[in-house]
C-alpha cells in the first residue's frame, strides 16, 4: 500500500455511521468520564454507556468482582443512577465529544424498558442497546434474553416506541444463539450485540465461600473470546442485521478476528480495566493491520470468513 493511502475505517449500522468500528462494552466504561483521562473520547467509534433503568438501582452486595484465569467475574447488578440523572449528567457530558452515543437500557419489566426508551426519544442518542442478558439481576432481565418468544415480544414492544435504532444485546447463556438472533431480527431489531457475559462461579477454597456475594457472576475477559467469536460467526450467518461483536477483545488482532467472523463493529470490555488505553490502541492496530494487508476499506473484510 502506498504511503499516505487514506484508509476507510467507517462502518454503518442501521443508517448510523461510525468513524471506526471500535466501541466500548456497556458497563466497563461508565459514560466515558472516568476514561477521558486516558483516551481521547473523540477518537472512539462509539461510547456505549453503562446500563440505565427508569429509576436508580443499588446493585448487588460486595464482593462484586473476582478474578478468574485469563478473565474475571462480575456481579455488579446493574447499579445505575436512573434515567433522569443520566440524561442531565451523563448525556450532557457526552455532548462535548465527536463520537456516537449508544445508551444501554436495563429493566425488570417490559414497561420499565419502554419508559426509558420513550424518555430518550428526544435526546442526543444515536442508538439504543437493550440489555436483556444481564446474568446478575434476578427478576426479569435475563428471562427476556433466554427465551426466543420473550425476546421477540420485548423487541417488538420496544421497536414500537423507539425513535432511535435498536440493538438487542444477546446472552451467550442459551443453547442456540441463532434462534435468539433470528427472534430479535424477526421482531424488527436493527442490530445485535453479542456476547454479554457468560454465567460463571468461583469458590474461595480458603474461606470456603463464594468469591462473589451474588454467588454467580458474568464472566468476561480474554478467556471467553473463542466462545464469542463462534457465536458472532453463527449469528452472522443466521441473520441479515449487523452485529456488534465483543467478548475478550484485547487488541487490534482480536478485533479483526471478530470482523472476519461477521461483526460490523466491536466493543472493548474487561480490557479497559487492565489497560485503560485499549480502545485507542485497538483503533491504531486495526489501521496497522489494514496497511499490512493492503485493505483500503475495513468493510471489505467484514464477514469474509465463511
Amino acid at each position, binding site marked *: 500500500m502506498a504511503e499516505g493511502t487514506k484508509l476507510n475505517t467507517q462502518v454503518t449500522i442501521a443508517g448510523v455511521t461510525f468513524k471506526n468500528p471500535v466501541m466500548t462494552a456497556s458497563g466497563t466504561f461508565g459514560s466515558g468520564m472516568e476514561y477521558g483521562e486516558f483516551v481521547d473520547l473523540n477518537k472512539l467509534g462509539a461510547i456505549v454507556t453503562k446500563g440505565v433503568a427508569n429509576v436508580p438501582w443499588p446493585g448487588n452486595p460486595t464482593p462484586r*468482582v473476582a478474578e478468574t484465569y485469563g478473565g*474475571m467475574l462480575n456481579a455488579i447488578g446493574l447499579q445505575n443512577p436512573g434515567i433522569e440523572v443520566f440524561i442531565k449528567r451523563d448525556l450532557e457530558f457526552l455532548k462535548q465529544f465527536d463520537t456516537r452515543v449508544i445508551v444501554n437500557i436495563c429493566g425488570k419489566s417490559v414497561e420499565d424498558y419502554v419508559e426509558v426508551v420513550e424518555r430518550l426519544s428526544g435526546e442526543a442518542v444515536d442508538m439504543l442497546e437493550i440489555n436483556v442478558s444481564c446474568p446478575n439481576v434476578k427478576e426479569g432481565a435475563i428471562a427476556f434474553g433466554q427465551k426466543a418468544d420473550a425476546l421477540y415480544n420485548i423487541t417488538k414492544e420496544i421497536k414500537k416506541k423507539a425513535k432511535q435504532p435498536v440493538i438487542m444485546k444477546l446472552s451467550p447463556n442459551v443453547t442456540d444463539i441463532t434462534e435468539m438472533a433470528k427472534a430479535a431480527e424477526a421482531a424488527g431489531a436493527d442490530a445485535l450485540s453479542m456476547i454479554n457475559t457468560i454465567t460463571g462461579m468461583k469458590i474461595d477454597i480458603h474461606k470456603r465461600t463464594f468469591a462473589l456475594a451474588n454467588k454467580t457472576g458474568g464472566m468476561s475477559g480474554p478467556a471467553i473470546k473463542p466462545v464469542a467469536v463462534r457465536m458472532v460467526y453463527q449469528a452472522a450467518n443466521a441473520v441479515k442485521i449487523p452485529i456488534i461483536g465483543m467478548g475478550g477483545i484485547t487488541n487490534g488482532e482480536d478485533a479483526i478476528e471478530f470482523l472476519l467472523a461477521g461483526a460490523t463493529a466491536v466493543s472493548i470490555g474487561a480490557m479497559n480495566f487492565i489497560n485503560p488505553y485499549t480502545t485507542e490502541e485497538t483503533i491504531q492496530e486495526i489501521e496497522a493491520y489494514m496497511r499490512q494487508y493492503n485493505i483500503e476499506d475495513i468493510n471489505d473484510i467484514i464477514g469474509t470468513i465463511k
Partner: protein
Amino acid sequence: MGKRKERAVVLKQARIAPDIYDMWIDTALAVEAKPGQFINIYPKDKSTLLPRPISICEVDREKNRLRIVYRRAGKGTGEFSDYKEGESIDILGTLGNGFPLEKAKGKKCFLMGGGIGIPPILQLAKELQTAGSEEVNIVAGYRNSDLFLSEDLKQYGRLFVATEDGSAGSKGNVMNAIEENGLKGEVIFACGPMPMLRAIKKFAEENEIEAYISLEERMACGVGACLGCVCKTVHKDEHSQVNNARICTDGPVFDAKEVEI
C-alpha cells in the same frame, strides 16, 4: 497531571516479615502521591489480569520514588515479590482520595493501622509533622512480634503496639492498646481489617471523635468505572444516586460517620 499508567522501575525489594515485602519503585507518579492513596500494579502473568491495588507506604517526591509494603497473598502479589532491582513494572496512579491532612491541624491525632493496613500510616505520620497537628500517637496492631515498619513509624510519632498473640506490646488489637495506655485523641486516621475499622467507628462515635477510615474491597478498574468496589453510605451518594460510594474514587478514605460497615 491526573491519573496515568506508567512504566516504573523496581529500585529494591526486601522481605521484612513472613509474607511481607517492602519495595521501592522509581516513578514520576511520586510527585503527586498523597498518604492514603494507592497505585494499581499490573501482573505480567496474563492469567492474572486484574491490577492489584496497593497502598502507598512512603513517598520521596524529590527522588521520584514510592515505597510499597504489601502482603504476598496470592498469584499476583506472589509475582511482585519475585521482582528484582531493575525490573520494569506497569502501574496506574495515583488513585483514591487519601487522608484529609487538613483535619489534623491543631489536633491530637490518633493513627491506627492493623496488619497490612499499617503501611499507609507511615507516610501519613510523616506528613502530619508538617500539617500542624498537635500530637501524633500511632497504634499499630500486628499478628505477632514481626513488627514490620515499627522502627520507621517511631520516627514520626509515639508508637504503641498491640499483638494478637501478646508477644509484643498490648495483647489483642489496637483497641486493647488504646485502653491499656489510656490514650486519648481528637481525630482518628485508620487503615486495617474490617473488624478493626468497625470497632474504631464505634469508639469514635461513643467518644465523639472525628474518624477517617480507609476501606478496602475487591476492585477491577480502580478508576470508578466498573462499580465493583462500593461501600454502603449513610446518605445518598451524588454520583450513584443510591447509598453506595466507590471506594476507589470517592475513597478509600471515608468519614466513619458517612459509611455503614
